[in-house]
């Protein structure tokens, strides 16, 4: 069988899967009415960048950012943001990890089965930092919406602070939501991811994911899973996990919808865009941070070649690594 035959068969199979007529579960889509006097919304997001690689050790910095927004008739107005930057050394070499802190060991263990473990460790550290900041926000604000980037699921449980965040939000009367920018869930049991499946449904509304799905995730999930189109002109449905006010989703989505009226991001909370922009700024600081590394390496008596060879790209790959050379050759040959 030639590769052409294989491709033809594959396409046939894909279309058959897509058109599979399983009995659809009726969708209970509830209408949303945007709140006329919305409460403030505090958006939390995080980011990281690798800077330096030495053997099996990587140096990275992570940032968590929280930005409160008041929404009035005249638009979106931020209050002063909170930004937390932290550096971390992660290692995939157990002997090194054993000489590091408890946090490092937990990060190592939680990611030991994953590919590119150094990236996973820093990503979990970023979530850890975000969780700490979300907890601070939940404790310091009352009667606001705390919107986190991503789902309200934690893996591993012991590293983030979601349980404490939920508790603090409940104490202070805060709505807690986690909004996922992209979700590939198949909670509705379709061949299409839920977001794509719901794309055919017009208008503004929200729908809860099947209970069966939530039950499967209950041990890692801190809330109820919904999909919502928060504005009639929104380009897509977003997954939104609701951590508090779980008995009043109408209220939760009316608040979220009000904060999602920006013409810049119809159907997605504007504050989360700004929190994201603020978080990823850490990547633009690389040059400044690299300078610090170079100075310290020089002070430690390292050679220029050794230092320069260790500088990495954002994702932790060394500059000048062989794959970069291959990438360039591939590009040039196009």
């Amino acid at each position, binding site marked *: 069988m030639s590769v052409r035959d294989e491709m033809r068969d594959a396409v046939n199979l894909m279309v058959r899967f897509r058109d599979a007529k399983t009995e659809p579960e009726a969708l209970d889509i509830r209408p949303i009415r945007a709140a006329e006097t919305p409460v403030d919304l505090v958006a939390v997001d995080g980011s990281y960048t690798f800077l330096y690689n030495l053997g099996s050790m990587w140096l990275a910095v992570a940032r968590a950012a929280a930005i409160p927004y008041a929404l009035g008739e005249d*638009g979106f107005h*931020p209050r002063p*943001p909170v930004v937390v930057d932290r550096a971390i050394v992660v290692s995939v070499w157990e002997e090194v990890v054993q000489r590091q802190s408890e946090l490092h060991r937990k990060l190592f263990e939680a990611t030991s089965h994953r590919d590119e473990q150094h990236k996973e460790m820093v990503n979990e550290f970023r979530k850890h930092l975000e969780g700490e900041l979300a907890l601070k926000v939940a404790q310091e604000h009352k009667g606001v919406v705390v919107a986190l980037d991503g789902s309200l699921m934690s893996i591993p449980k012991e590293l983030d602070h979601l349980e404490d965040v939920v508790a603090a939000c409940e104490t202070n009367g805060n709505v807690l939501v986690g909004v996922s920018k992209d979700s590939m869930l198949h909670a509705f049991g379709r061949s299409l991811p839920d977001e794509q499946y719901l794309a055919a449904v017009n208008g503004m509304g929200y729908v809860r994911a099947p209970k069966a799905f939530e039950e499967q995730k209950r041990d890692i999930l801190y809330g109820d899973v919904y999909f919502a189109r928060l*504005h*009639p002109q929104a380009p897509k449905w977003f997954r939104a996990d609701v951590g508090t006010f779980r008995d009043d989703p109408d209220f939760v989505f009316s608040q979220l919808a009000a904060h999602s009226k920006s*013409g810049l991001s119809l159907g997605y909370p504007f504050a989360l865009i700004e929190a994201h922009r603020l978080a990823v700024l850490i990547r633009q600081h690389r040059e400044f941070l690299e300078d610090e590394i170079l100075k310290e390496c020089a002070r430690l008596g390292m050679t220029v070649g050794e230092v320069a060879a260790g500088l990495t790209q954002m994702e932790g790959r060394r500059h000048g690594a062989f794959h970069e050379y291959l990438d360039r050759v591939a590009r040039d040959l196009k």
Partner: protein
Amino acid sequence: MKIGEVIAGSVKEGLQVKLQLEDPEALRIGYPVIVEGKQYDFYCMVDDIVNQEMDIAERLAGAEFRDAIIPGGGTHEGYGGPIFYSKAILKPIQLIAKESGDLSEPQTIPPYFAEARHAAKQDVDVIYEVTDTSVPLGTIRGIEPYFVHVDFATLVEKPFAIYGRTGAGKSILNKLVCLAILAKDVGSVLVFDMVGEYGVYSRADDTKGLKYYFPEKVEIFSLDPKNREAHPFILDPREIEPEDLIVALQDLSPSMVDTIYAVHQHKGDRDLITAIQQATVEQLGETLVHEMSLNALKRRVHRITRLPFLREGKDAFPQMMGLIRQGKSVVLDFGEFGGETSTYLFVANVLAHRLYDQYTEKSEDRRLIVFLEEAHKFLDPEVARFTKFAQLARETRKFKLILALVDQRPTRIDSEIRSQLANRLILSLKEQTDIQSALVGVQDVSMWEKIVGTIPVRTVAVIGDAIRVPTVIDVMKYDDEHVKEHVLGRIQRTANEMTGISEKARKIFDSST
């Protein structure tokens, strides 16, 4: 009020400021802005205002939103200010040392994120000096109502120019400048009043003239014999020089010009005009003149001979000079001849000739400022060599005879003469060549080109040593209230008013006794 922060800059190119204004229309080219450095306040002018190209704006433009918050300068604030923001390009003009208040030229730049704000009264107070001889011409743009003073003693030390297209407000500005000179008594003025604007009342718009505000200081001479209220202006034909005719009759061919000089050499005791009228080819010789040229010249000279003020009699010039020596100013009213350019050119050039001789040979003490409207007609490179005005512009500042050019076409004024100007008061100009000519030799010329090309009418860019820093000024309203309050000053007003009050009191007192 804070308007933004510095995001880039260079000493040569100026500063870029990210604006935090909801509406960029709140700022205009030429507005003064202070950038707060660490050691200095940078006194800047707005050179340009820019909405930079943004991909997101391009994508959103034309989109129809329903029940949404439309993105705009004020509706979407990010962590670093408005998402959609404008930039201002600022040109530092002066540095003000924070501790001492000393002023210096801008030789450095402020740090990143230095705060930019509208200039306030206390900032401009440091910049603009009020002296015994300074008078405001109007308010500074962007901080109304701050009246900016120009030093008129400095202004009248050297030749200066008032440029502006038709309708830009030259006459009003010219009147204010004349009044300020008289108010501060830094010199006398001689104004060639073509359309009757400068006497007691303007014949054009009934506004008050120089003599209204300074009845004792201003004397009016008139070319029009019917005007009985003015001194009659008589010009003795014996004073006419060949160059006077060449300038007055600007359509002379080279051979006609040669003929004038030939006649001048052979005129004997006769005046030049009579000599031309009586000249024949036989008398002068065929080698010097041609029949056709001579006849053509006679026809053209006839335009001059019919002028009623050109006659033997008591020449007005010595009388004018006597008045000027007494500290008086002269308005020469052209009356019915106001529409005749050749008459204006002729009279102005004859007087220029005599003034030049008088000031250079007899060392007059009283400073005289000659306002020359339509200056390009005297100072066009083609004509300038025949007029005394070019020499006046170049040479006479040491003799206290100062030329003030008033013109709408600076590009047609000889470049060497333009380079002699120590101060320029530039109103709106539209022709790019005129803008460039008006601004030759000015620092930051590209900024000033933009300003002069875009300022509205009755707004003037004042550039030169009579003002501390080049400034864009909204020319003050020309009415009694403003002139008395800001130009004549309280002392003058009080004196006038006191006269009126004492007169009233006398009448009341007389009627009651």
